[in-house]
């Protein structure tokens, strides 16, 4: 048979598309999306010691990976409206960055995906999926395919975002609850 080496190289040439990611929201944009009527955000980064991280893991059964959790207090005309927390969880290739709004009493107001760079599962940024978290609190099961639907092709991302919210609700109990 005739050698067709150049033909074999065609797919290699095709696989030269440069990679890029989608940053949906900056911190300021996420703050305005979650607290559209807020007039002020006060930085309140949380430094977690080992026993606090253990307590979070004990409540949520999810490892608290970060020693520092970026959090802000949202105010509207001087009134405290809730917490704005940025978190990162593992996706299939990269970290997924999301922001969570928690009410002063520890219920999820809403969630925004800030950065998602995975091959499949862009639906995590759609309101239909994110709305499943609204109203969740420490009593909520937050289990994939129970109260949170799965997105095929992005199961790991869905699971880790869901677990991330569960962990932040535990963080609220340990660090933020008045």
């Amino acid at each position, binding site marked *: 048979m005739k050698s*067709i080496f150049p033909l074999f190289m065609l797919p290699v040439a095709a696989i030269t598309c440069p990679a890029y990611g989608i940053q949906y929201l900056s911190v300021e944009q996420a703050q305005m999306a979650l607290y559209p009527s807020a007039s002020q955000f006060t930085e309140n980064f949380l430094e977690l010691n080992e026993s606090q991280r253990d307590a979070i893991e004990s409540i949520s059964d999810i490892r608290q990976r970060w020693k520092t959790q970026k959090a802000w207090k949202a105010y509207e005309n001087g009134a405290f409206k809730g917490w704005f927390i940025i978190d990162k969880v593992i996706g299939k290739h990269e970290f997924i960055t999301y922001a969570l709004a928690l009410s002063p009493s520890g219920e999820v107001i809403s969630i925004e995906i800030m950065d998602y760079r995975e091959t499949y599962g862009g639906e995590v940024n759609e309101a239909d999926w994110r709305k499943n978290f609204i109203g969740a609190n420490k009593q909520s099961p937050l289990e994939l395919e129970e109260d949170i639907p799965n997105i095929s092709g992005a199961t790991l991302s869905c699971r880790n975002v869901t677990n991330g919210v569960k962990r932040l609700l535990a963080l609220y109990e340990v660090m933020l609850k008045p």
Partner: protein
Amino acid sequence: MNKTHLLSATLLSALAYLPTAQAGENLLGYTKGAEPLPKGALELYQIFTQRSDKGQGTYDAIDSTTELEYGFSNRFSGSAAIIGHSVETKGLIIGGYLPQEKSLGLTLSGIEAQLKYSFLTPALNDIGLSASFGIDYDTIDQHSGQDKDTLSANLGLQLQKYFMDGQLVWLGNADLETTHATRDPIEGIDDEEEWPTKPEMEVGIGISTGLSYRFAPNWSIGAEAIYETEYETEVGQERWSLFAGPSLHYGNKHFWSTLTVLGQLSGGGETYENQSDTNLHLIEKTKQEVKFKLGYNF
């Protein structure tokens, strides 16, 4: 229509009408994952495997697989591939396997098709489990570069387990392959010992396991070990080998690639005359294999 045209037409038909395929993103070179390709997803893979060093003379071979995989449902995928080989062998003659020196450029030689069904998803269940069934037809002997018609059917099981939120991944595979092969006669070689032309049946079993750890966004390192054995009609257990080695994987939204280098740690079965290292199987295997994979997500 000559043989080349017939094969090309078959391949094009297979690619056009049988969008069946393999296993999505590969963290390791040889051990596959159990994650299903989502419904409607289409991925293209190009895989090169270099096999080199039989301990005597010069031996260098490259296998190429160009494959398309399509997700029929969120659990069921299929793939079709065209395969080819190049073989460069000098200074080593092995009766029945390497009958003469050969220099064959990379040549289209066969097709593969595979179906895969995922029973358990690793990110959703405690462990992922999938099964695959594939057939392949090849017209070139990948060891010698000589003409040889080979029809194989393989059945595989893939296990996958996530640890540390998916940062650490364990993979395990078990494969069973049956092969029917007939060598074409070689002009000037009439001795059946040197180059048997009677049809033969082989059964191969493969078990592999490996770990992959993501050490930075997009980047993973891994290691795997592969045990393979093969039984043949004439000689019973013909060979066994144990390979192991590291992998480096990069993956992002659009494409991924994996580079794996394996060395043969141990092997047995048949040996060739005057083989110096009898602790390795060097007739059908080599001392080293390097696999490079590229995947593109449409």
